[in-house]
């Protein structure tokens, strides 16, 4: 793997192991081109991942799309760019400089090149000319122009044209007009490259068989589908980057997946609220009423929802909250990724509160937690947060196909009329907040229950086991202690961490979420290049289970790797294991970009030397 920074000419061909960065202007339709390249490579059986590094803007600002191609299946972001495709005059200088020595620059030939480099291969592309000749209507010309680089790249590095066609067919949902227009231009550009460019660089693709049994999906779509399989009934939401597409996608799938088999009517109510306050308010109302209820937002929205979430915690209302994390604090970096909401969510409200968090690593786990989250929420009668992020949510992930829920729905402890009658017969008292089973989770009734003793009054003010108003210090303390018990019991109920070990590991690594590919890759380099073996624990939920404590206990030194400034997950871990807190070291960076394996490795190596 160390060969990457050496001039390619000394190495011969570089096959299926390089990165492509496409530099364009946002709002020009380049996303279609980039997805087409990524999907075509995937269809060639080569492991691939595309990441969109885009501005908070609709049209006219620089945007980059990086495509990682790795025969070994390492799909994290890399900092090196072997191939750069330059389409934006505003960034051309930087783009040229970004190409690693021995690399390749494809550039639109109408761009003036402010600098020259003789250590890279430079291919001009007659973008405007070919777009003009394509016969595309004038207003579409800028959009289809981006197909020129698809064609030229395809010819030079060897992307299968049939796979490109398949990718376009998918993208345009089989609509012949746009498929033919775009494909025609790609073919023309490829033909032009064949006739006019001489391949001088070493990078090429060869078909593999490594993507069979995988799908490509973004995490927001996966989350939406997971929720639909989880039986979601009510969604209150408000648009926010990067969470909007979660519910938007869900809305599209409702008619497909959630037609009631009995009446043919849809069984999901999705309401776009006027703001996050109302979005979570509706969601809590619905959860209280016995519906499977969720909202989806990002950190700024979580801030607005904070007060309501505290109410849901104390009034014990089951809801699911998706936090697709972005750059923060404040409006921050709305189109960049961060794991910056961890402590915010963990202590969501004023007073003593706790939050249950599920932390998916990719689109497949987003699907799984999409349905499981409702089971936990209803079982524990509390808000459950799913901590996704922009990288998971908005980028295409190569993952195993979604798996149908392996367990029936767990609706938790709900009593209907006949249950209350039975309880009465047995002489059992029912109180909304009475801990009958000793597990901290009381039984609830919901509206519409016609039993004359079913009703209770829900309030955010002090209340006793029978939901009566109370300011009694003992009652207050007792109720909050009992709620804490639910949190403690959740430790062993929630998804367990994933642990990967190596013989003779020097230290442990703890991380979570979308950092996983970079961690896996960093561990590979540490072992292969430095001979350092590592153990790795990937957190999948908060509060932490016993395995986490055991993992920490069994290592002398652990690095907690995360995408924020302060090492927020490390803080939570240290609170959980104060006696072992000094064993935990923070490897944290929150610059808005996904972590890379090299950065993780180098940072750990530096800290090892200290």
């Amino acid at each position: 793997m160390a060969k990457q920074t050496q001039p390619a000419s000394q190495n011969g061909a570089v096959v299926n192991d390089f990165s492509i960065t496409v530099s364009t202007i946002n709002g020009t339709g380049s996303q279609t081109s980039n997805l087409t390249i990524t999907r075509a490579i995937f269809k060639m059986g080569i492991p691939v991942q595309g990441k969109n590094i885009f501005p908070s803007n609709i049209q006219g600002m620089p945007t980059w799309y990086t495509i990682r191609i790795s025969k070994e299946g390492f799909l994290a972001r890399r900092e090196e760019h072997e191939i750069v495709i330059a389409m934006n005059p505003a960034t051309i200088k930087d783009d040229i400089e970004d190409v690693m020595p021995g690399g390749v620059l494809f550039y639109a030939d109408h761009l003036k090149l402010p600098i020259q480099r003789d250590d890279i291969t430079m291919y001009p592309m007659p973008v405007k000319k070919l777009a003009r000749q394509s016969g595309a209507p004038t207003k579409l010309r800028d959009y289809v122009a981006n197909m020129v680089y698809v064609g030229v790249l395809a010819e030079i590095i060897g992307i299968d044209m049939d796979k490109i066609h398949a990718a376009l067919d998918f993208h345009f949902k089989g609509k012949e007009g746009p498929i033919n227009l775009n494909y025609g231009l790609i073919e023309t550009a490829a033909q032009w490259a064949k006739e006019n460019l001489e391949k001088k660089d070493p990078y090429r693709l060869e078909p593999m068989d490594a993507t069979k049994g995988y799908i490509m999906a973004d995490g927001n779509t996966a989350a939406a589908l997971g929720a639909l399989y989880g039986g979601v009934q009510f969604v209150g939401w408000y648009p926010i980057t990067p969470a909007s597409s979660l519910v938007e996608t869900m809305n599209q799938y409702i008619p497909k997946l959630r037609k009631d088999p009995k009446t043919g009517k849809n069984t999901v109510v999705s309401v776009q609220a006027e703001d996050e306050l109302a979005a979570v308010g509706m969601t809590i109302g619905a959860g209280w009423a016995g519906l499977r209820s969720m909202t989806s937002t990002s950190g700024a929205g979580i801030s607005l929802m904070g007060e309501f979430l505290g109410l849901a915690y104390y009034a014990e209302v089951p809801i699911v909250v998706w936090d697709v994390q972005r750059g923060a604090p404040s409006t921050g970096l709305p189109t960049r990724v961060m794991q910056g909401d961890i402590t915010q969510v963990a202590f969501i409200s004023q007073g003593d509160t706790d939050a249950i968090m599920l932390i998916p690593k990719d689109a497949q786990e987003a699907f799984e937690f999409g349905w499981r989250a409702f089971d936990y929420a209803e079982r524990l009668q509390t808000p459950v947060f799913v901590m996704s992020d922009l990288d998971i949510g908005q980028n295409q992930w190569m993952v195993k196909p979604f798996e149908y829920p392996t367990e029936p729905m767990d609706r938790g402890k709900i009593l209907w009329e006949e249950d209350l009658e039975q309880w009465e017969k047995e002489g059992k008292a029912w109180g909304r907040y009475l801990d009958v089973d000793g597990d901290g989770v009381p039984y609830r009734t919901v509206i519409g229950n016609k039993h004359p003793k079913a009703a209770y009054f829900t309030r955010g003010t002090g209340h006793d086991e029978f939901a009566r108003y109370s300011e009694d210090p003992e009652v207050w303390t007792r109720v909050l202690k009992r709620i804490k018990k639910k949190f403690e019991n959740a430790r062993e109920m929630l998804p367990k961490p994933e642990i990967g070990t190596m013989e003779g590991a020097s230290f442990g690594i703890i991380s979570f979420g979308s950092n996983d590919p970079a961690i896996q890759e960093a561990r590979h380099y540490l072992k292969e290049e430095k001979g350092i073996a590592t153990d790795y624990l990937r957190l999948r939920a908060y509060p932490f289970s016993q395995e986490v404590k055991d993992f920490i206990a069994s290592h002398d030194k652990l690095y907690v790797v995360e995408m924020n400034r302060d090492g927020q997950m490390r803080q939570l871990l240290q609170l959980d294991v104060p006696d072992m807190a000094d064993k935990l070291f923070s490897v944290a960076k929150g610059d808005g970009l996904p972590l890379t394996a090299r950065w993780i490795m180098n940072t750990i190596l530096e800290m090892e030397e200290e």
Partner: protein
Amino acid sequence: MAKTNALGLSIADYKGAPTTLCQGCGHNSIISQIISAVFEENLPPEAVVKFSGIGCSSKAPTYMLGRSFGFNGLHGRMPSLATGALFGDLSLIGIGMSGDGDSAAIGMGQFKHIIRRNMPLVYIVANNGVYGLTKGQFSPTSDRGLKLKKQGVNPFEPVDVCMEALASNATFVARTFAGDPKQVKTLIKAAMHHNGIAILDIISPCVSFNNQPSSTQSYEWGKQHEVLLHEMQFHPDAKEIQLHGEMKPGEVREVTMHDGSVLVLKQVERDYDPTDRFAAIRALEEAKEKHILLTGLLHIDTERPSLTELYELPDDTPFNRMPQDRLRPAPESIQTINDLMF
């Protein structure tokens, strides 16, 4: 033997915990009228769900309908809670109890948007023009020039709850007065039969902080300045309409609600058409100019679909009783979904 309704329930079955509001508080009178309205409408208490925000008004649901579910939520956010909750079982009637501080300050956004969506809810604003629970600060509906101990003189124009509702195209807008319990009860009954949002701005004097005769939200001012838009009778069943002697055909309007119940309006000074939104706005402006408390049904629109109708949910079973096999897609669908991915 206590009087019972058609369900065999007595008024005691509709009561809540003893009130802790001040003696003479207008809100207590509203509570009584809600209890009577539900009792007289022969609705089981379980058929009603109570919601409230924060403030004296929002404490009220504790003191009525103890056998109804209730949710006392956050300041100004009763509307969103009610919206989500009522989807749980669309056969239920929601009563939202709010106040001027709750709805016309932090809650103004949710007030406007639940109106915009036409969510079926009896939305009561118990309006006393003062913050009671925090002991006497100005509220958004305080009179301009109102003088309060510790606060000085209010320099700002008050928010007119009914005008805001009309501006947002509310489908049911009424103003009434806690000192006129009969009218309050009739309007609550009609509101419970309205298929959409029903805004009831009830002037409800605060005896502790804003009941001085110069205040337009005091008992004395209200009693002296109340002018009726019309006299009202509510008939759950159209067949039962029997006009009393003083209500002669030709001088009355009948408003038929979507479920066939009828609100009969007898003209008082003039023929007022509550379906005319312009007329309602004009009436409010004139009332302000004339310095009167104009009460009655200001506006009604029975045509607009409600939010819950738009979703066309299965109606054979309440949504919150729907079993898993109607909520989770069939196993074979997962293959189709995976095929739809790339």
